[in-house]
């Protein structure tokens, strides 16, 4: 006879499931928030508020819906709340532009298979770039050094390092697009 799980155990399972869903959609949601809120620190604040809102309203989440679309929807609300409440001292997009970007993001339907394929594609594409480019990415993204410090140690200017980062990101985007097109018929 199968063991019946307790309410506490069930709640724990739900929590873990929810966290896993969020893990899979992390880059999509945080990337979206950062793209809308250009200030990095403010974007982190908005993202945290979004995650908190997701967590608090998880019971209302309809599991038949696509989690990512739901999460992006809540992030969208939080972003617009942010722009309403702030005095907008920093540079930002117009409301019309924000609406367009938010709508564009919302139109994307991404199931779990696609998200996992995307993770695989990134790792696979990282293997295709030059070793020196991977090393540059590692140093810049690992969080131990600033781009300025990396540039200094390489006897380069920060602008030059940023430029190299741009090149390799574009390479990765193109590589991922091709792989996802092959696997999912879309980039």
């Amino acid at each position: 006879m199968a063991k019946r799980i307790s309410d506490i155990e069930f709640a724990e399972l739900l929590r873990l499931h929810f966290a896993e869903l969020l893990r899979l959609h992390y880059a999509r949601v945080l990337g979206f928030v950062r793209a809308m809120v250009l200030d990095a620190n403010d974007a982190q604040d908005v993202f945290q508020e979004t995650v908190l809102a997701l967590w608090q309203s998880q019971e209302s989440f309809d599991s038949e819906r696509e989690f990512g679309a739901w999460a992006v929807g809540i992030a969208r609300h939080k972003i617009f709340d942010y722009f309403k409440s702030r005095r907008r001292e920093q540079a930002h997009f117009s409301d019309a532009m924000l609406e367009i970007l938010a709508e564009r993001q919302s139109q994307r339907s991404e199931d779990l298979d696609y998200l996992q394929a995307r993770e695989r594609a990134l790792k696979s594409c990282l293997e295709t770039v030059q070793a020196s480019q991977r090393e540059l990415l590692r140093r810049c993204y690992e969080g131990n050094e600033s781009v300025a410090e990396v540039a200094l140690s390489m006897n380069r200017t920060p602008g030059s390092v940023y430029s190299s980062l741009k090149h390799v990101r574009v390479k990765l985007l193109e590589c991922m697009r091709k792989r996802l097109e092959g696997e999912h018929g879309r980039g």
Partner: protein
Amino acid sequence: MVVVDSSSQNLLDLVAAACDGRLAAERVAELEQALLADPAAQDLYLDYFRLDTQLSALWQEQRSREVLDRIEKLQLVEPAYSWFDRAYDFISHTMALSLLIAGLFCTIVVLSLAVISMPELTNRSPKVPSRDDYAARIYDSQDAAWNLTQGQAEPQWKDDLLIGQPLDLASGFVRIRYDNGTMVLLEGPARFTVTGQNSGQLLRGKLVARVSKEATGFIVSSLTGTVTDLGTEFGAYVGPSDDLEVAVFDGKVRLETSGESRELGVGQSARVTGNSVVQGDGSTRFARVLPREAPGAYSLCVLADKPLAYYRLSSIVDEKGDRFTANGVRVAFTTPQPGLNRSNGFAGVEDFNRWANFDGGESSTLTELKTGWNSNAGTISYWVRADEDGHPTQTHLFASDDGDGVFGKSVSIGCIGTFARKDGSFGFSIDGFQIDAPAGTIGAPLAWNHFAFTWQREAEPANSTIALYLNGELIKSVTTEPWTEFTIAATRFGKEQSGNSRIFSGSLDELALFAEALSAEAIQQQVAVAKAASPAPIESSSE
């Protein structure tokens, strides 16, 4: 996601600047204008930020796993529950529930909070490893498979190795580079641990250590003995009996056990058994290089970097398979012809020197080399043996967008060229920009030298780079303003386009053209492969 093409360059610059937090306020409107009516640009913009977020997560997750592994394996703290779960509880109940959830994805956040936000725990917790806690890095591997414990991430090429972090290689080869330059090539199955900035422990299997000059004194220990480098390259093997066997390929080592110590020189081998050191029988075989780097694999090394064109002599001279053989064709130009432009045919290299492409297909002369490559990014590499005579300045490769340029510092517009001088200097010119290595850089004539030149054009001011390499070493690199973007319509080796006499006199081999700027490591590897010891790659120790 969208296709990224060159016409999107300005948009890319704006997007990258926004993503990196470098977009000036006055350019936000420009970015908005670029995005407003272009759904493809909007997709690019969103995808770019998303990729940036993914990359952060990828590397920081890896680092957080290493940190946790370190804490768990070295048992630096009381049971892991104490601090980690307190951090969990603290965050869950008081600070930011959101961070906890995200922390499942990015454990580094949790660790950071544990260290930064909770000083009362910091005192009792291990410090987050600093750079000093790492001593080596996985530098390269071939066909590596690992024995992993549950939840352990597979070591990757990019991984730094913490002191005390055990490696259990099931099969294949892994090369570890210590921060001091020492290289250790592990051959699976093997169990090895980096135990310090200049030491390691071999519990099972084989390794070959090539110790840098700065790291003399490098120590490999086993359960039965210790081998200390005295400036050398050596192999070590620990078999099922736990005996430590050592063979010396270069220099000397000291082999010690609790009861005995003995120095070994080149070609000698010995084994520690019990408390004794006994003479080895030389039967153990060690891999001193990765199999793909073995002599005979030069062309594979070049091909691995996907050259646009690769010219070697395999169908003309016995090149011995894929191996680099310093032979080449002598390409001295003996009868200068004044009208050597493309329309009249180029004779800088005598036309009877027929060159075969790497695949053994149709041969071509050095007067009609690969075209269609461009000035945005690329690499030229080749081996040259200069004659003792000839013009003081000799052109090597010359390429032009339209055939009208004249090779020279100030007027080589639309041209790419390489050259060397009798005074031992050499250099590279692209669209009027020139970079020179100083006189005396190249050694005496009649020796084979490997030349490589890389270029990377960036649209941003003063960010384009040109680099010169000689025999795998970076000789000079400059960062400069961007040159003009152009495509090569004519390429040849041995003489520039104008009717002067700067003609190459010597031999040439293994000329390769690449469409991207190769890394320093890739160029070094070409030379390392060519110079790898001529005997078979699997060395056997001998007494």
